[in-house]
C-alpha cells in the first residue's frame, strides 16, 4: 500500500472519529443541561462529510446545514473554537453569536451552517459564481438533506449553475428522514432525476462508504475545475440520533430495528476500520490510539469551552454592520 494512500486513509479515519466524538460530547453537554438550546447530531453520516471534504483543498468552499458539525470538522475546524461556539462563548468561531446552527469557519472555507432548510443553496452557487468570474479554480460543495429537496430555491439555483457551468457540487445527504417524516412521503419521483431535469449530471453513492464517496468526489472536483460542472451527488446515509438531541422517543416514525441495522451493519467508521485492517492500511492498535487521542482532545476542548468567557455584553450590538 502506497504511503500517501495510507496517510489519506488514516486522515479520513481520524476525521470520522473526530466527528463521532464531537457529537458524543455535544450530546453529553445537552444531557447535562450545559448546552443552550438544541442541536442536531451528525453521527452516522461521517463518511459523507469526510469523504467529500478530503477531496477538497482548503481554498475550496462548502456550505452547511442545521446538521453541520460534521461538515465543519471535516473542513478543518478545531474542537476548541467549535465547542466554544456551541456554548455561546467569545472564543467560538462566531464569537458565540451564531451557535450550532450558524457555525462558520471562513479560514477553512466553511461558509456556514444554515438554519433555513435549503437556505445555503444560493450561497454555494454564488461562491461558485465568484470562482468562475474571478478565475480562481476553487470548487464549492453545497451540503443539504433530502428534506431540502422540497425547497424550490434549490431548483432555481441548480438551473443557473447548469446554464452557467458553475463549479459547484450539490451533495444531497439522503438520511431518509426530514424531521419526523420519511423521504418517500416528502419527495415524489427520484431525487437524482431532480438534478438531471435541470441539465445536471447526477450520481448516487453509498454515503456510508467513505472511499466510494471520496473517489466520486475526487472525480467530480477535478471535472468541476475543468468547467464540466455542476454535479449532483445523492448520498445514501443515516442519522443515528433523533432529529435533534431532544428527539428521544421516535419509534412512531422509525423502528428500533431500522436504527440497529444501520448502526450494526453499515456504520461508516466500523466498516472502514475493518476495511483498513483487511487491506493492511492500519493496525487495530494504531486505530485504537487515534480514537483514544481524539477522545482526550475532545474532552479537553469541552473543559476549555466550559471555562471560557462569554462575549462582553457590549458585543450585543456590534457586527450588525461591517465597517
Amino acid at each position: 500500500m502506497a504511503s500517501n494512500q495510507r496517510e489519506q486513509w488514516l486522515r479520513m479515519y481520524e476525521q470520522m472519529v473526530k466527528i463521532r466524538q464531537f457529537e458524543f460530547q455535544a450530546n453529553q453537554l445537552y444531557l447535562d443541561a450545559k448546552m443552550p438550546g438544541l442541536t442536531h447530531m451528525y453521527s452516522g453520516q461521517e463518511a459523507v462529510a469526510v469523504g467529500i471534504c478530503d477531496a477538497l483543498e482548503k481554498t475550496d468552499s462548502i456550505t452547511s446545514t442545521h446538521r453541520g458539525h460534521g461538515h465543519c470538522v471535516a473542513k478543518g475546524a478545531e474542537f476548541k473554537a467549535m465547542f466554544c461556539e456551541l456554548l455561546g462563548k467569545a472564543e467560538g468561531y462566531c464569537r458565540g453569536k451564531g451557535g450550532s446552527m450558524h457555525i462558520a469557519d471562513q479560514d477553512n472555507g466553511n461558509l456556514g451552517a444554515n438554519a433555513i432548510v435549503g437556505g445555503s443553496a444560493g450561497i454555494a452557487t454564488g461562491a461558485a459564481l465568484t470562482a468562475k468570474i474571478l478565475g480562481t479554480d476553487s470548487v464549492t460543495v453545497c451540503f443539504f438533506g433530502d428534506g431540502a429537496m422540497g425547497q424550490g430555491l434549490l431548483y432555481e439555483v441548480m438551473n443557473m449553475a447548469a446554464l452557467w457551468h458553475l463549479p459547484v457540487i450539490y451533495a444531497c445527504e439522503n438520511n431518509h428522514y426530514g424531521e419526523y417524516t420519511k423521504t418517500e412521503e416528502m419527495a415524489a419521483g427520484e431525487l437524482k432525476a431532480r438534478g438531471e431535469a435541470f441539465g445536471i449530471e447526477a450520481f448516487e453513492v453509498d454515503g456510508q462508504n467513505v472511499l466510494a464517496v471520496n473517489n466520486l468526489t475526487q472525480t467530480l472536483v477535478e471535472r468541476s475545475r475543468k468547467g464540466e460542472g455542476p454535479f449532483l451527488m445523492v448520498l445514501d446515509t443515516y442519522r443515528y440520533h433523533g432529529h435533534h438531541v431532544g428527539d428521544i422517543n421516535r419509534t412512531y416514525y422509525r423502528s428500533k430495528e431500522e436504527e440497529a441495522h444501520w448502526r450494526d451493519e453499515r456504520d461508516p467508521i466500523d466498516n472502514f476500520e475493518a476495511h483498513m485492517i483487511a487491506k493492511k492500511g492500519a493496525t487495530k492498535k494504531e486505530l485504537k490510539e487515534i480514537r483514544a487521542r481524539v477522545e482526550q482532545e475532545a474532552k479537553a476542548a469541552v473543559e476549555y469551552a466550559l471555562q471560557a468567557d462569554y462575549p462582553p455584553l457590549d458585543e450585543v450590538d456590534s457586527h450588525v454592520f461591517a465597517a
Partner: protein
Amino acid sequence: MRSITLSQAVNEAIAEEMRRDPTVIILGEDVAEAGTPFKVLSGLVEEFGTDRVIDTPISEPGFTGIAVGAAMTGLRPIVDLMFGDFLYLVMDQLCNQAAKTHYMSGGKLTVPMVLRTNLGATRRSAAQHSQSLHALVAHIPGLKVAMPSSAYEAKGLMKTAIRDNNPVVIFEDKLMYQDKAPVPEEEFLIPFGEAKVHQAGDDITLIATSSMVQVAQAAARLLAAQNISAEVIDPRTIAPLDCSTLIESVKKTSRAIVIDEGHQQYGVTAEIASVIAHDAFYYLDAPVHRMGAMDVPVPFSPVLEDLTVPTPDRVVEQAKKLMRGVREHVA
C-alpha cells in the same frame, strides 16, 4: 374554571372548528403523526385523518400557495408555519396573492385561510429561529394579524380566525406553549379589533402585545409596589388595531409605553406610538415611549440574547422616568 396550556387551547380551538366545519383542513410540516415539533396539534390526525391534517414536504412557499387556492375554492385551510422566521419564504403567496385577491377581484373571490406561526426569542435558537416578524404582515392591507397573549386569547382568537373570510396570520409565543390560564369549557370567540384591558390603572398605560403582556403585567406589579398605577392593555389583534381603547386609556393616564417583541425600528411600537402621539396629543404629559426588541439579529449566546428583549425591570425604569416627566430623563 379549568386551566389549560396555550398549546392545548390552540389544539381545542382547531379541533372544535374542524368538528363544526368539514372544510377546515391543516397543511404543514409534521403536523400529522408528529403533531408539530411543539406538539401543539397532537391528536388531531387521529380524529380527523390524513385527508384533513396533511403533512407536507418542506415547501413553505408551495403549501402556502396551495392553501390560497384551496381557500379560493371552498376550503378553510390552516397553514402551519413551524417558525415565524419562515414567513420571509411565504411573503409572496401571502402578500401578493392571499392579501390582494379579494380586492383585485372586485370582491368576488375570497381567501378564508389562517396562517398560524410563532414569535419570540430567548429560546437559544439564534438568529433564524427567534424572530418576531408580525410587523411585516401588519403592514400589508388585506391581512388580519392576531397575537394571543394567553391560552384564553389563543383559543378565542384562533376560532375567530378560522371563521373569518379573510387571510389571518396568528402569532403564538413559542415560550408560552406550556403556560396555563383559565379557559372556559363553553364555546367562545374573541372578536378581532377589540383590545383587552388586563388591568386598570391611572398613572401610565402599558400597551403590550403577545409575549410582552406578561412583561407588562410584571412591570405593573413592580410599579404598584412603588405607588405607580399602571393600566395594561393588550391589543390582541394589531390589524385591525383597536385605536380607541388605547387612546381613551392614554387620555386618562397621560403617559404610555408600548412594548413589543419585534424589532423596534419600523416595527409595531412605531405604529402604536405614533397613533397615540397623534390622537392623544393634547393629553400627553410625556412622550410615548417605545420598547421593541433591539435592532440586532438575535444572538445565540445566552448572555447577549437576554439583552435584546424588554424585561419588567427595564419597563419599570422607563415608566419611572416618564413619571418624573423631566425633560432630560426622557430623550
